[in-house]
């Protein structure tokens, strides 16, 4: 990546808070979340389930259902434009062309009622304004590119006639064929076997243009290691640490990041106990005062129960929100 590209963020999110009105009261699913993505950068958003990763990601293209959801932010700037003040029409333009989503479930992106070819062609007609014949050609080429054999025939297939891995490839083709500026991939391979997962990530790597950015959401630390240059670690609705891939993996500063890395079962040649994190992720109805990680943290102090730690710098482009770092910096 050139320095030029490094200088202007494609996406910048400042103090995003997402809340839901539920029968049991108001829950805060994302709490003062701030981050940015540079042009061409692949950023991983990691954390265990329920920590607010999907909610954070869905806020960018404003896909949080409202009601019950409420988005508030100081800014969500996409390519210099303020997402929060866009009209629905402008937003649809952004969602169709500039921002593509890849989900865990292909069924959320593929209609069961229409043939693959028709679905792909329609997206191209709408957003690329290609003549119909050409759109069909382009769609078919993309099917071939994502490794679907017999692509001319597969254009006439319905999604249910294809395996999960194949549907996932088609969703990737649809996400990439419009040359988006930003890809948001939310657990894109969680439902797939490792062998298929590896194929899918190879595909994304090969097909994605160099200046396209990607926000990859996953609970799988191995996957972010392979795919991302920078990592955001989320715990119980908050980002707790951000840094380069190497900083996070080799020099984690937040006790949650460190605990998570140790708890991952790695391929090993001999059986043995794992280093777990005691306790469990609290429910959003029961987030404590102070640091959200305190109940599970081996280092928790009085201060941690009283107030929330701010972010401390712990290296170039590396920050963590933990009081242990107050003395260091």
């Amino acid at each position, binding site marked *: 990546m050139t320095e030029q590209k490094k200088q202007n963020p494609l996406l910048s999110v400042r103090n995003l808070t997402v809340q839901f009105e539920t029968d049991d009261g108001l829950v805060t699913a994302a709490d003062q979340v701030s981050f940015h993505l540079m042009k061409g950068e692949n950023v991983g958003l990691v954390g*265990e*389930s329920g920590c607010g990763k999907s909610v954070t990601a869905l806020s960018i293209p404003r896909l949080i259902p409202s009601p019950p959801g409420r988005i508030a932010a100081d800014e969500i700037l996409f390519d210099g434009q303020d997402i929060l003040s866009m009209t629905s029409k402008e937003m649809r333009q952004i969602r169709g062309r500039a921002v593509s989503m890849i989900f865990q479930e292909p069924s959320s992106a593929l209609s069961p009622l229409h043939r693959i070819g028709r679905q792909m062609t329609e997206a191209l007609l709408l957003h690329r304004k290609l003549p119909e014949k050409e759109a069909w050609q382009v769609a078919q080429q993309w099917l071939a590119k994502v490794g679907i054999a017999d692509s001319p025939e597969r254009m006439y297939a319905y999604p249910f006639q294809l*395996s999960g*891995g*194949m549907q996932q490839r088609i969703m990737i083709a649809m996400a990439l064929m419009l040359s988006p500026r930003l890809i948001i991939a939310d657990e894109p391979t969680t439902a797939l*076997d*490792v*062998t*298929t*997962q*590896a*194929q899918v990530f*190879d595909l994304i790597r090969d097909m994605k243009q160099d200046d396209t950015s990607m926000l990859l959401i996953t*609970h*799988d*630390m*191995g*996957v972010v*290691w*392979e*795919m*991302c*240059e920078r990592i955001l670690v989320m715990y119980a609705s908050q980002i707790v640490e951000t840094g380069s*891939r190497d900083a996070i*993996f*080799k020099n984690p500063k937040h006790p949650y990041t460190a*605990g*998570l*890395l140790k*708890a*991952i*079962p*790695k*391929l*090993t*040649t*001999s*059986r*043995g*106990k*794992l*280093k*777990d*994190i*005691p306790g*469990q*992720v609290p429910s959003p109805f029961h987030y404590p005062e102070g640091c959200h990680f305190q109940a*599970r943290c081996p280092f928790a102090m009085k201060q941690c129960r009283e107030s929330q730690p701010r972010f401390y710098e712990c290296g170039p482009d590396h920050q963590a929100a933990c009081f242990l770092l107050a003395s260091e910096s």
Partner: protein
Amino acid sequence: MKNRMKTSEKETPPLVRIRDLKTWFPVKRGLFSRTKDYVRAVDGITLAIYPGETVGLVGESGCGKTTLGRTLLGLESAHSGEMFFDGIALHAIRAKAMTPLRQRIQVIFQDPLSSLNSRMTIMDIVTEGLVRFKKISTSKADHARRLLDEVGLPPDAMHRFPHEFSGGQRQRINIARAISLRPEFIVCDEAVSALDVSVQAQVLNLLMTLQERHQLSYLFISHDLSVVSNIADRIAVMYLGRIVESGTTADIIGNPLHPYTKALISAVPVPGNNTGNNTGRRMRLQGEIPSASAPPAGCRFHPRCPEATAVCREKPPERTVTEGREIWCHLYGASDG
């Protein structure tokens, strides 16, 4: 750990022995077709599990792992082959003779909520088996307290209901129920697959602690090779209804020989290992696992195998013992089997 490993050496007879087991599911071809077709979910499996050891069973989804486990548990009936538990022939057993065995063989499934009755209290759930087999010596509450303590849950959990617990806690409840009758053998089918990593590690550790305390044997089924390698003494790798390679965890992970095992290992993203991101590619399998109703001729793996030769397309490989493991692949052993 050392003396646990000893038991898997061949002086002791195996607790579970499976020989050429086949479990097929009939499928209808056409409406009027009389010829029956089968999904050959388990298609000729031979496997031994020794007292006190964990055998990890891995392979991609649909390869037949669950079906093998369910057949052992008597939940599916075998098409052919033999299964022995402590010398008792499970394949030929009558329903009545099976009853005492139900105490000795237990199961833990992936989804703890659907396997727990939502209207029963945790006390009733974990002591259900004890009541059925008339094993309540003091009071149900006493037994429940002891079982909950074994799995790291507080005693007051016994008066609550399954939906009040998190996924990890529910799996602990399942484990408490599974060990209540002091079984010797537990089939764990994707028992930690739905859990978050931090909790997954807790539950894996609990399973290992209980195994050491009670000399349990596990058949630990999972699609996740990393998870399996952390708990298994031996690993059997399955592909399309058959085992392709089995041996100690050290041999299978440290020195895989079968091309499928190699591919599975190479697909696991390893943090901290610089083969990923930007620095070239590792071995990749092409295509997807074929249908179990029409498995490829010859070696079932040949259409995806990077090392397949003419013989692989024609003849199924025989079992060969080499470098401490059993392997089914034409690259190893005598070519005429």
